[in-house]
């Protein structure tokens, strides 16, 4: 049941981040002239990830019913599932999130721009509210509110960065077409500018989250803290790759240079690192911090 929950958590985090990143890329980063080109991939990202959010959300709920109840037989016990939804802090967040993921599937269907705005709003709620369950829920009062805010900021800024990587690959392919280059270049500049801000928020909120969850209980013998260190190491590696991408490869893009291809390769490396980080997130969220 633990493996099932870890798998559901991994898919859920990845889908929430990809959904948010795809929506924000379309609304905030690309010039209007590129919207017709990116509409189809954006809607596919939205539809697939909303579906994954719903299915993995159900799996996560059933795994919680088994964990909180009396074992695997309670995963499909309607009264236990009902009790998880109505009586627990997890359930009070989870019921509305499942409903939001259904609305998200519907929002992916229309082709009009207003539907992308609705999708972005739903994506923000779906990703940010992940900070309200698990270790984000352990404090109460003002401290609890600060903890949840910091968790939400961490999730949203990671969604901006990690979730933009897939549409970024699509954007980089446009550099092969000389007519598309000026618009693609404008989008890349905007991603780079806001990306610096997102990374800054990501690092600061990461430090804050560590403090909220661990405080002074530093014990590097605890598996949670060892894996957290690995995660921080991977995040640091990802920052280095991003710096190479931005300051070594981006300047080589103009005039059909090799930069676009190199940046695409660097982006794939970032995606692999992202997947490793989310795998760690899926696992350490289930462990005791100390």
């Amino acid at each position, binding site marked *: 049941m633990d493996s099932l929950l870890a798998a559901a958590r991994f898919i859920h985090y990845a889908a929430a981040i990809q959904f948010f990143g795809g929506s924000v890329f379309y609304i905030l980063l690309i010039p209007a002239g590129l919207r017709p080109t990116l509409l189809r991939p954006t809607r596919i990202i939205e539809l697939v990830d909303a579906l994954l959010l719903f299915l993995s959300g159900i799996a996560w709920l059933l795994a919680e019913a088994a*964990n909180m109840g009396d074992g695997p037989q309670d995963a499909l016990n309607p009264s236990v599932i009902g009790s998880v939804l109505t009586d*627990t802090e997890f359930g009070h967040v989870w019921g509305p999130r499942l409903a939001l993921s259904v609305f998200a599937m519907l929002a992916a269907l229309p082709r009009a721009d207003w539907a992308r705005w609705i999708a972005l709003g739903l994506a923000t709620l779906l990703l940010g509210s992940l900070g309200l369950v698990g270790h984000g829920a352990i404090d109460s009062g003002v401290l609890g509110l600060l903890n949840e805010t910091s968790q939400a900021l961490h999730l949203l800024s990671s969604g901006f960065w990690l979730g933009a990587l897939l549409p970024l690959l699509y954007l980089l392919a446009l550099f092969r077409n000389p007519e598309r280059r000026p618009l693609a270049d404008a989008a890349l500049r905007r991603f780079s500018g806001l990306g610096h801000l997102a990374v800054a928020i990501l690092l600061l909120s990461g430090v804050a989250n560590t403090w909220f969850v661990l405080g002074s209980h530093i014990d590097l013998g605890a598996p949670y803290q060892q894996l957290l260190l690995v995660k921080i190491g991977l995040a640091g590696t990802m920052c280095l790759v991003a710096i190479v991408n931005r300051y070594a490869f981006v300047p080589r893009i103009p005039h059909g240079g090799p930069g676009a291809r190199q940046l695409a390769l660097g982006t794939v490396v970032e995606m*692999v690192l992202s997947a490793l980080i989310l795998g760690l997130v899926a696992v350490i969220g289930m462990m005791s911090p100390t």
Partner: protein
Amino acid sequence: MLRSLSLAALLTAALVGLPLATATQALAHAALVSEMPAAGTTVTASPTELRLSFSETLELSFSKVAVKGADGNPVMTGTPALDPNDAKTLIVPLTSPLPKGSVTIEWTAVSADGHKTKGSYTLTIAG
């Protein structure tokens, strides 16, 4: 490109294996901090309630206490409730007096972050 793709495939395989390998390490979250009457003590008269204080806020619906007498037979208790002033403390009213001799209290606690912990302690009822 092919080399980087095979590297990506290798890392993905390692990633998929990772949760399976480490998922069993899920550890304790809500720990029992103190209890009334205190564990291991001898009391002369049966208490009217048991109070179990934990390190974390509890989910009442999934936090349970089972009481057993020295003969291993379960003792009926009232419905557990949270202390209105402290959501980390579980109060179990005792509707009938505890039997004389050693009494085992087995608890299951689910904390607000959804994690379950279990434990037990004993009391001795003299008299």
